[in-house]
Structures are given as structure tokens and as C-alpha cells.
């Protein structure tokens, strides 16, 4: 099937779009960000395919060095727009960033598992789901935290954005390097050892 990704995209987006008319206020925005994540995943896939077709490097080089750059760059745009144009609360920026990251991961996982065909097992699905899901969530969370801090500190806006983006890109690249090697099973370890302390710190800060 030629346009499988497009069909999946339509199948996921259609019910979510209907839900968008039912939800109100904060929930509507969060759902909108999850949908934006799904859309950005499609867009990033097209951009990566375009780069791969026009460049002289292979698929592995693309996943390790180029796709983290394009994906994180595209992901950061809506998060920074939300933070700087609407100046919402700290918690809301983080929630929207997480929704965007999870939306991205959802679309990517579905597309990858469908394209893998019969080779998919429950182990692959679990590792893909938890590993890539958490990784995209954490990358978006880094950007969300950066955006939230930078909306209060406009003086360091440009260096701050570039610094935050660098962190997200390198983290994404590390994960991609692990899963494209023989140590694929350790791919889940990186998001796990980052997510748990991050969750702990965030919960502690929320309590304060």
C-alpha cells in the first residue's frame, strides 16, 4: 500500500478532530497539541524522506544525525509559540509539551509497527511503545521546561532556545543510535533512567 502512513494519519486524526469540538478550555488546547504532534510526525517524516533522497548518506546516518535535528526543530515551534504568545502557567506549558511529544510518538510508533509487517512481536511493540514514547515525551518536556523558563527571561531568549534545542537533539540522537545498533534492547533504559528522576523532581516541585 503506497500511502499507508497517510491512511493511518487520517484514521487517527478524524476521531480526535471530532473530540476537539466536544472539549473546552484547557483540555481542548491539550488535545490540539497532541494532534499537532501527530501532524508534525507526518511532516518530519516527509522532510526526512526528502533529505534522504537528495543526500549522499544512508538511512542509519540519517536516523543518528539528521532526523533528531529536523524532528526536534519542528516540535519546538508550537511549544515556543504557546509559551511566548499566550504566556500560560508553568504547568500548562509542560502539559502541552508532553501532549505534543506523546502525539508525535503515537503516530511514529503506529507507522513503524505497520511498516514492519509480520516481523512485529509483542516484545517489539512494548519496547517501541515505552522506549520511543518516553523518549519523545522527554525531549518535548526538555523543550517545554526551557520554554517555560524563557518566557519569564526574555533577555536570554535566543541563546536559551538554542541551548534547550541542543539538549533535546542530542538526547534524541543518543536514543536513535542505541536502537539502530545491536544493543536495541537497551534503548528503553535511557528514557527510563531519565524519566523516573525527572518525574520525581517535577512532582517535588509541584508539591512546593
Amino acid at each position, binding site marked *: 500500500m503506497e500511502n499507508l502512513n497517510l491512511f493511518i494519519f487520517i484514521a487517527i486524526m478524524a476521531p480526535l478532530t471530532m473530540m476537539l469540538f466536544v472539549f473546552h478550555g484547557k483540555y481542548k488546547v491539550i488535545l490540539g497539541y497532541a494532534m499537532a504532534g501527530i501532524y508534525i510526525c507526518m511532516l518530519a517524516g516527509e522532510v526526512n524522506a526528502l533529505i534522504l533522497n537528495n543526500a549522499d548518506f544512508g538511512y542509519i546516518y540519517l536516523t*543518528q*544525525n539528521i532526523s*533528531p*535535528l529536523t524532528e526536534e526543530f519542528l516540535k519546538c515551534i508550537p511549544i515556543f509559540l504557546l509559551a511566548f504568545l499566550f504566556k500560560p502557567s508553568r504547568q500548562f506549558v509542560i502539559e502541552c509539551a508532553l501532549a505534543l511529544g506523546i502525539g508525535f510518538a503515537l503516530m511514529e510508533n503506529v507507522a513503524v509497527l505497520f511498516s514492519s509487517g509480520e516481523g512485529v512481536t509483542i516484545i517489539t511493540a512494548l519496547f517501541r511503545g515505552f522506549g520511543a514514547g518516553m523518549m519523545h515525551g522527554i525531549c518535548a518536556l526538555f523543550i517545554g521546561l526551557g520554554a517555560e523558563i524563557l518566557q519569564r*527571561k*526574555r*533577555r*536570554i531568549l535566543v*541563546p*536559551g532556545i*538554542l*541551548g*534547550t*534545542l*541542543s*539538549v533535546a*537533539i*542530542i*538526547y534524541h*540522537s*543518543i536514543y536513535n*543510535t*542505541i536502537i*539502530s*545498533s*545491536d*544493543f536495541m534492547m537497551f534503548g528503553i533504559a535511557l528514557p527510563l533512567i531519565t524519566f523516573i528522576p525527572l518525574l520525581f523532581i517535577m512532582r517535588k516541585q509541584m508539591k512546593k
Partner: protein
Amino acid sequence: MTLDFSTTLNFVCFVLTIVAFIFGAIKLFNRNVPIYFRICVCAVGCYALGGLSECVYAICTGEFTADVSISMLGLFGCLFFMISANLEGDKIDKREELKIHYKKHDLFAYIAPAILGVALIYMIYVAKDQVTLSKIIFLTIVYIPILPASFLSLLYLVRPSDAVKIYKYTKLSNLFILLFCILSVADLYLLINQMWDASSICSLVCVLALCALMYSCCRGAKGWKSISREDLAVPADTDDGAKEESAANCQAGPAVAKPNTKSNIEESA
């Protein structure tokens, strides 16, 4: 994977950076510490992430990437965090008379980006025959932030701390930031000339500079807290952001001891 001298040294560099980052995060990552020092911790963390990327690549593929790779963004991000730290630290000082007072020192600070800029242009000129155009563009993008980072670090290094006392506590940190910038340019020179072992030694010295930066940040944070509130006061003509920063810095330490009245004890609880 054969562990040669260069590879081993790169692993040592990564371990040292991670240790420095954890040390900094434990000591400095709380609300009572001025934001300058917290951003310095982020800079070291970003550099450590770049090192981790190199190590993971080495473990997964069996060879250390001596080529241009995404792990170089660790340095890129680190430099931008260093610039952010200095720009954020500068917020307190916005008085016009101080700008005139520091005019000579500010002019002197242009020496650092001028020298490093000439060195970078020379290296890119040398590298043009050895590497492809896309890699030259990538290297230029990665190393360009060295210029503002070195300028800002030298600026706060040469400014006397007579009028603004906090400069006294950021001087040592800025000295190590400047050293880090110079060593990074030297590292690039060695990389371009394919002197891998010497480059690894230079990277190790870079990492040691970052470790020293973390130590100096801990010392600086303690000193900053001891400045009295009057010294951090911002005049009325400054913007709101500066006032907020000043207020945050005032909260940072036990500058003025409060008497142990009942209301104060309740407030602190």
C-alpha cells in the same frame, strides 16, 4: 572495540564531565542559588550529554567518531548556556553611570573574540582542502558561539568589582569559561590536523576546566549569598525584570539577619 589511548581518554572525559555535572546539580540546583550558577550547571550538563553521545556511538559501532557528528552540539549548547548565564548575570547592572565607568574595560574585552575569531577563520581556511563544504558550514555554526561567550567572560573578568560586588564572585567562573573557549579552539585545530591523541588530551583539559568551573560556581554562590541587600539594590530607572532579579538575589542568601521574632519564625517555617 580496541581501547586505544584516544578512546580511553574520551571515556575518561565523559566520566569526569558527568561527575562535575552531578556535583553541580546537587550543590547548586535549588531556588536559593542565583540563576547565573544554575545556568552554568546546565552548560556542563549539555557538554556531558555530548560526551555521552560520543561514548554511546563508540559502544554501539565499535569506533570513536573522529568526524563531524551531532555530538558536537554538546559544545554548541554548552556555549549558549554560558552566554545565557553571563547575560542573565548582567541584568543587575543597568545604571548609565556604570556603563561609562566600565567603558575602558568593555573595550578591552573585545580582544578575546578578535583573537579567537582570527584563529577560527584561519582554521576554516586550512580545513577547506581537507573536509567537505557541508562539514565546514557545520563546524562554523558550532564554533561561532565561542566569540560572544569569550567576549562576555572576559568582560566580567576585567570589570572591577568596586561598584557591583557580584562581579567578584563570578570572576573565577568567567576565567574558566574563557579558558574553556580557548581550549575548544585549540581542540578544533588539533582535530583538523588529525592529531587525535593531542586532541584527546586537549579535550581532557577542557573537561578539567569545566570541573573547575563547577567548583568555582559553588564558591561563587556562597560568596554571592553573603552580599548585603543594599549592594544588590537596583535604582528606580531599571526595568522590571532587573528588579525581579534583584529581589530574587536578595532572597538568595541570609544577607541581612532577621531577628528571631515570632512573625519571622512563622514566615521562615
